């Protein structure tokens, strides 16, 4: 059996959970290595060797050392193309182009406002940092406009890139889980008919349920 790949970082990190979801979809064995962020382990020289920006996750597969969760996911899909969910990153160039388009939309349009909301609503309280209501309102408005566009798209196709679940949908799971689950902003998603339907489908996948379990048991 091949050596399991290594993922460095806590499952509660949105970026780490993005990689875990991808590994589970692809049935790729992995070893989760803890990083003590409360003690600043991610900013120390040893860790900076594998992630020079001092962020989680870092990832290793034999001699290949990577970072940036979306790059790690793409690598996993290409290297293990024949394992698990084979259509996750598309099985032809046109499918891949559409997935890339919506993966970029996630990274450039969905992630900025949703990440701010996740930090303000889910993490700031536990870190005893004061929430900024102006920032919350601004980003809720930005995210609402993005979700209006998503709602129209998801009225035309079952998932973002087409009619199959892909990496583009997967990439949205971590932030949305926090917003729907613990932050009281679930209505942003559930009040939009097609977005609500899409969220139910993608969050019910076995792979995502396992990630949520991992987050709960490491809390």
């Amino acid at each position, binding site marked *: 059996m091949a050596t399991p790949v290594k993922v460095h970082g806590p499952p509660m990190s949105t970026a780490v959970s993005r990689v875990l979801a991808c590994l589970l979809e692809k049935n790729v064995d992995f070893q989760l290595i803890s990083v003590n962020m409360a003690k600043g382990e991610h900013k120390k020289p040893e860790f900076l060797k594998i992630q020079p*920006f001092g962020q989680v996750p870092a990832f290793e597969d034999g001699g290949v050392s990577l970072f*940036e969760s979306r*790059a790690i996911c793409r690598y996993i899909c290409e290297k293990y193309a024949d394992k698990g969910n084979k259509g996750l990153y598309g099985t032809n160039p046109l499918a891949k*182009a559409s997935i*890339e388009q919506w993966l*970029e939309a996630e990274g450039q349009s969905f992630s900025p406002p949703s990440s701010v909301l996740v930090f303000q609503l889910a993490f700031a309280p536990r870190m005893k940092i004061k929430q900024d209501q102006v920032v919350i309102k601004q980003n809720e408005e930005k995210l609402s406009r993005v979700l209006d566009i998503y709602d129209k798209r998801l009225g035309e196709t079952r998932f973002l890139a087409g009619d199959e679940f892909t990496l583009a949908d997967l990439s949205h799971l971590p932030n949305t889980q926090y917003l729907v689950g613990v932050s009281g902003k679930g209505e942003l998603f559930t009040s939009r008919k097609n977005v609500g339907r899409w969220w139910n489908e993608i969050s019910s996948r076995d792979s995502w349920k396992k990630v949520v379990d991992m987050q709960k048991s490491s809390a």
Partner: protein
Amino acid sequence: MAPIRVHGTPFSTAVGRVLATLYEKELEFELVAVDMKAGEHKKEPFLSINPFGQVPGFEDGDLKLFESRAITKYLAQEYADKGTQFKCGDSKTAAIIGVWMEVEAHQFDPAAAKLTWELAIKPRYGLNTDTAIVEEHEAKLAKVLDVYEIRLAQSKYLGCDCFTLADLHHLPNIQYLLGTQAKKLFDSRPHVSAWVDAITARPAWSKVLALQKQ
């Protein structure tokens, strides 16, 4: 009519990313103007190409795409055998190139794009630069470029020893910032400075700048 059409202005950083790639790949294309002052990008038929109402919109025959970094990837893949190869060796380096493409998108661009807006674009429209935002984002960009300085001491270009999309994606913002006070951030880091000189000197990039002068 060329099957490849790019909708947008060559002054847009995102459009510039796509145009640079088209020139690197030596592909024929048509640049279709979008009247952003009149809000053309927020209406149909533009929204059918990019529902987010942003430039560029892109067409290759029947295929429609948006998001500049998805478009450049599509071009690199679809026209792999034409023009600049954007790679250097095996799939292991392809993974590393992928990492640095994400670094541009998520570490470099957020700070650089804010600075481009405040220092290069706002003055053109007679708008006031917000010095607090400039200070904040110059500090952020400096930290990112510190990492780049270490990387570029080990590797000729960001992804590997050849010019790839990981480098190209930086061009539009870097070009704008070189014309502002933020130039010092690049000049003061020798490996970053040499890399900036190399990538901005590419003939394909000069062609994009020529479009801006038309």
